[in-house]
C-alpha cells in the first residue's frame, strides 16, 4: 500500500462506518481522482455519496459547509492546494468562522483534502505549500501527513472531527510505501511523531522535508551527531510540547520547511519557542526554508528551491558548532 492508495482506503473506511460521510470534488467519482486517490469509491458507495462536480471550487467548499450544517460529514477535494486561491473566501471567511460567528450554534464536520507540494515540476501554480496561507485563519485545523499510516489515521480522524480540517496530501509522497493493518490506528490531531531520537539537536519537519530530515539525521549520525527528528503531523493544533520536551535535552532547534519563510508554520514555531522557551536554547533556533520566489519549473531551479539534505546536514553542523 502506498500514500496515494491509502487515501481511498481511509475515506472508504469512514464512508462504510458512517452514512453521513460523502465525497465531492472534480473527477473524484467516475475517474477516481486526478491523482487516482479516490479509485473505487464511486463503485462502492454510489453516485449519491461520491459526486463529481463542475470546476467550481467556491461551490464545492461552500456546499460542503452547507451540507455539514445540516448533519452530513462531507469530504471535499480541491485538486491542487494552489486552488485554495479560488475558494479562499469559503475556506477562510466561511468554513473557519461559521461556528464562531453563530455563537456556537453549529458543528462543522468538513474535511477538505488538497494535494500540495513541490518537487515534481508542476511549476508556480501547482506546487505551493498552501498550508501557510491558512495559518492566520483561526477556526481551521490543518494536517500535513508524511507517511502512509499518518495519512490514513489523520484523514480518518479529520472526517470524525466536528470541525473543519484541511488535510494536505503531498504530491511528491504518493509513491511512499507503508503498512495499514486491518486494525490501523486513528492518529489524533495535535500529537507529533518523534521519528528518531537523539540528544544533540532537534529537527522539526513535515511531509517531504520530514523524509529529508530523517536522511540528514542518518548522515549526521555517521558524523557522530545524534538528532531527534519530530514530525508535528498537524500544524493546527501544533504539538509544541513534544518539541519542547526534546529541546530540554538538545537545546538546539532546527526547523526544515518546504516553502518561503514569511508567514510560515516554521517561522511561527521558531517564534513561539524563542518566546516561550528562550532559556532552553543554547544556539539560535533556525528555520531552513525555500527561497522567496514562486516555485520555478526547470529541474535545477526547483531542486534548489527545496531545502536539500545537504543543506540540512550543513546547518545542523553549524548549529552544533555554535
Amino acid at each position, binding site marked *: 500500500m502506498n500514500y496515494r492508495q491509502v487515501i481511498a482506503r481511509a475515506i472508504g473506511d469512514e464512508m462504510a462506518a458512517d452514512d453521513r460521510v460523502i465525497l465531492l470534488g472534480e473527477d473524484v467519482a467516475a475517474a477516481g481522482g486526478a491523482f487516482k486517490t479516490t479509485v473505487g469509491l464511486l463503485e462502492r458507495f454510489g453516485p449519491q455519496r461520491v459526486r463529481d462536480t463542475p470546476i467550481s471550487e467556491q*461551490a464545492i467548499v461552500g456546499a460542503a459547509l452547507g451540507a455539514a450544517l*445540516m448533519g452530513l460529514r462531507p469530504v471535499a477535494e480541491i485538486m491542487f492546494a494552489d486552488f485554495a486561491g479560488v475558494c479562499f473566501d469559503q475556506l477562510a471567511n466561511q468554513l473557519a468562522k461559521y461556528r464562531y460567528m453563530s455563537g456556537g450554534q453549529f458543528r462543522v464536520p468538513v474535511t477538505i483534502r488538497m494535494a500540495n507540494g513541490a518537487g515534481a515540476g508542476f511549476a508556480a501554480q501547482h506546487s505551493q505549500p498552501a498550508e501557510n496561507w491558512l495559518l492566520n485563519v483561526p477556526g481551521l485545523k490543518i494536517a500535513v501527513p508524511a507517511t502512509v499510516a499518518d495519512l490514513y489515521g489523520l484523514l480518518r480522524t479529520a472526517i470524525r472531527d466536528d470541525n473543519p480540517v484541511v488535510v494536505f496530501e503531498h504530491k511528491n509522497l504518493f509513491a511512499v510505501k507503508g503498512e495499514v493493518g486491518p486494525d490501523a490506528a486513528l492518529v489524533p490531531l495535535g500529537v507529533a511523531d518523534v521519528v528518531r531520537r537523539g540528544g544533540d539537536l532537534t529537527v522539526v519537519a513535515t511531509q517531504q522535508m520530514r523524509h529529508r530530515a530523517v536522511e540528514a539525521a542518518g548522515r549526521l549520525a555517521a558524523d557522530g551527531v545524534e538528532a531527534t527528528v519530530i514530525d508535528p503531523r498537524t500544524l493546527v493544533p501544533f504539538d509544541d510540547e513534544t518539541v519542547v520536551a526534546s529541546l530540554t535535552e538538545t537545546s538546539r532547534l532546527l526547523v526544515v520547511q518546504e516553502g518561503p519563510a514569511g508567514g510560515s508554520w516554521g517561522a511561527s514555531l521558531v517564534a513561539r519557542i524563542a518566546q516561550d522557551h528562550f532559556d532552553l536554547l543554547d544556539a539560535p533556533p533556525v528555520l531552513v526554508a525555500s527561497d522567496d520566489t514562486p516555485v520555478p519549473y526547470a529541474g535545477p531551479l526547483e531542486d534548489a528551491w527545496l531545502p536539500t539534505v545537504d543543506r540540512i546536514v550543513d546547518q545542523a553542523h553549524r548549529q552544533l558548532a555554535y
Partner: protein
Amino acid sequence: MSGSLADLSAMLRIRHFEDAVRDLFTRDLVRGSTHLCQGQEAVPVGVCGELAPGDTMTCTYRGHGAVLAMGSPLDRCFGEILGRAGGVCGGRGGSMHLTDASVGALGSNAVVGAQLPIAVGAALAAQHLGTGAVTVTFLGDGATNIGAFHESVNLAAIWRLPVVFVIENNQYGEYSPLATTTPVARLADRAASYGIPGVFVDGNDVGAVRAVAATAVARARAGDGPTLVEADTYRQQGHSRSDPATYRPPGELERWLARDPVTLLADRLTEQGAATPAELDAVRERARAEVSQALERALSWPMPHPDTRLEGVYA
C-alpha cells in the same frame, strides 16, 4: 394567494424592527455597520411564508427581515445587533451575521455571494438525506455579478437540488444603480445559463411573491431542482448606516414609497374586505408593541463577558 393579515403583521414587525435598529444606530448602540430592509419586507415574508418546518434559509447582511420571517424571536435578534450575550449568536456575530439555526436561519453573510454555495450545500444534505426539505437563499441584484453566484446556481442546477435563489432586486448595489454594473435588464433571465426557470415578480406585492415562491418551493420539493426568482423591490433607506442616498434620481423614492409593500397589503386587505380598519389598527398596534417590548428586553441583557471570548471557535 393575496397576502393575509398574518403577512401584514410579519411585515410590520420587520418594519418596526428596522426602524428601531436605525434609531439604535444613531444612538451609538449598534457597532460597525447595519443594512436595513425597509421597503423590501414583502420578499422575505412572502418567500419564507411558503416554507415548511425543517426548511432552511441563508441570506445577506441585509438579512434582518429574512431571519425574522423564518420566525427568529425579535428580542434575541435585537440582542445580537446590540452585541448582547442573549443575542442569537451570543453577541459574536452582530447585525451582519444574524443566525438562528433553531428556525432554519442558517446564516446571514457579510461577503457578497458567499451565502449561496452554503445554501446549495444545505439543499444537498436534504436531497441526500431524503428529508424533503427546501432551502431558500436571498441575494441582492449586485450579487448576481459575483463568481459565487454563477458557481452556486450551476451546481444546484446540474444536481437538481431543492434550493430557491431569490434575488431581492432593490435597484442598487451599494450606491451603484443596477444598470451601471449589469448588462441585462432582467436578472431572472440569467436562469437560462443554467437551464432552470427564471421568474420575475413584483416584490412589493406579498401575494404575488407568495405565488411565485409556492411554485418554486413545490418544484424544489418535488425534486425538480432550483428556480431563480427576481423580486423587484426598493431599498427605502440608504445602503448602510451612514448613507443618505443622495444619488437617487429625484422622484424615485417617492414613486416607490407610493408602492410601499406594507401600505399595498393593508389597502388590499381593506378593499377585499378581508380586514376592517379596526382589525388593521389592532395588527399595527400589536406589531409596534411586540417590537418595542422585545427591544426593551434585549436592552436589559448584559454584554458577553470578555472571559468567554475564546469559546465557540472549535466544537
